[in-house]
């Protein structure tokens, strides 16, 4: 089957690298930074004001793609729960010697527990590797979107985008 966002719902690496919200590999290696996986020109802009440092710009018209100023971005992650598309992640390649930290939005119950080992999944929801939940951040101003950070081996950081939903199997 054909690859890419329009036919599979999964953006390909080539598609991602072309978008203005995707940081350069140089910047990625330097420390935590936002990765904005928003590839289509839709009328949407909450990310622009979400960032306190002004590192995201949509501008006019509102259908512009969000553009990341990778030098301004500190990877603080505030924008993650404020994007209604759940399209923003933060990756920190400097987290430890061999691990990177991937931070993503999460809206399912029950929440994962900090320090637990879970199956980290890729953009298709398939388990890819084991990861350790480092932080589960639930804030009132996030309005029920929880921000989860997971440590995985560096080579998986650009593919891990979530965890296996933790729930009892229905009958």
């Amino acid at each position, binding site marked *: 089957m054909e690859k890419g*966002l*329009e*036919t*599979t*719902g*999964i*953006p390909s690496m080539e598609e991602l690298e072309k978008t203005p919200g995707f940081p350069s590999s140089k910047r990625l290696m330097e420390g935590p930074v936002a990765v904005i*996986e*928003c*590839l*289509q*020109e*839709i*009328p*949407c*802009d*909450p990310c*622009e*004001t*979400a960032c306190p440092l002004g590192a995201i710009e949509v501008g*006019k*018209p*509102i*259908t512009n793609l969000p553009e990341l100023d990778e030098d301004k971005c500190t990877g603080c992650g505030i924008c993650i729960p*404020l*994007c*209604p*598309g*759940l*399209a923003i992640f933060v990756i920190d390649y400097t987290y430890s010697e061999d691990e990177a930290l991937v931070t993503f939005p999460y*809206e*399912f*119950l029950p929440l994962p527990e900090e320090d637990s080992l879970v199956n980290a*999944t890729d*953009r*298709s*929801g*398939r388990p890819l590797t084991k990861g350790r939940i480092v932080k589960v951040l639930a804030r009132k101003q996030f*309005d*029920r*979107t929880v921000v989860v950070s997971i440590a995985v081996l560096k080579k998986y950081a650009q593919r891990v*985008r*979530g965890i*296996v*939903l933790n*729930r009892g199997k*229905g*009958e």
Partner: protein
Amino acid sequence: MLTTDVVVVGGGSAGLAAAIESSKAGAEVLLIDENARPGGQLFKQIHKFFGSRRHYAGIRGFEIGRRLLEEAHKNEVEIKLNTIIFGILGNKIGIVEDKTHAKWLKAKTIIFSCGASEKLISFPGWTLPGVMGAGAAQTIINLHRVLPGSRFLMIGSGNVGLVVSYQILQAGAEVVAIIEALPKIGGYGIHASKIRRAGVQIAVSHTIKEAYGKDKVEAVTIGALDKNMNLVPGSEKRFKVDVICLAVGLKPNIELPLMAGCETMFLANLGGQVPIHDENMETTVEGIYVAGDCAGIEEVSTAIESGRLAGIAVAEKLGYLTKNEAYDVKVNLREVLDELRGGPFGMQRKYAKQQLIRRAAHLKGV
């Protein structure tokens, strides 16, 4: 008989916005909705809305509804709930109050903001209990808090299919797959990506062949479609599901505008037959306006702005705003609407709206 300045039919985002603007300008406004609470679509939407910040994007749907309602109260809009409008006769509006008392109201102007209905498709087995509209499933789950099943198949990959699938997962059930007859996903990539990350497959170029079950849905067969939309022999797959959700599009609720004599036009990109309206949202019948999904299926931000536009135009018509006062506001609202209808998804709607307005100009002989 009471004659109100403006009767707004339907209290969703468009109706609330229209009522607020007319009332602000000084008109006497009565907003009528069949539900126990106003807000329309918004009250079952538990997801954060995409859109522009100006239009409450990033906020969950029900909260947008609450805010609009608060503004309507502040601006002294009279709201009549649990009231169905069953007919229009000239400037008379037939209503049924509290599901029992029928009576007539008179209005100088009417704004139809009565939203949209789900389209359906038929297939062998489609009358089995367990086959339902995605919007219906959403109402059952998010408003009545009942899960109608445990294994869902979603038909249609537009934003409604994608968003409702996500909410089914949040409610604790499984979505076995989302199937789409066209070779491309219909909704926004952001919605598709988040449902994929949660492990749900989206199969484009696939359709439903048959639903099976004794007293209710128990299984389904789907199959692949070729370029000419014919089923590829041998591609059928059968699996167990207990709910089949149809998210195959919405169509404007045009019954009341039709009764009022408004002319319509077929525009696929706006959901089907749409009341013809001019740049003031006025239909082909003087004094009757449309706004929101009823004037073509779009989004909340456009519903709000088109509602405002209709509200302002009505206030102007009734003499509560001078031509000059209304002019700047209307120009500004039209610019915002134009901007919202940009990008590859919005362009087609922009073009369709232009066709409507041209047609109205032609019919009105402007």
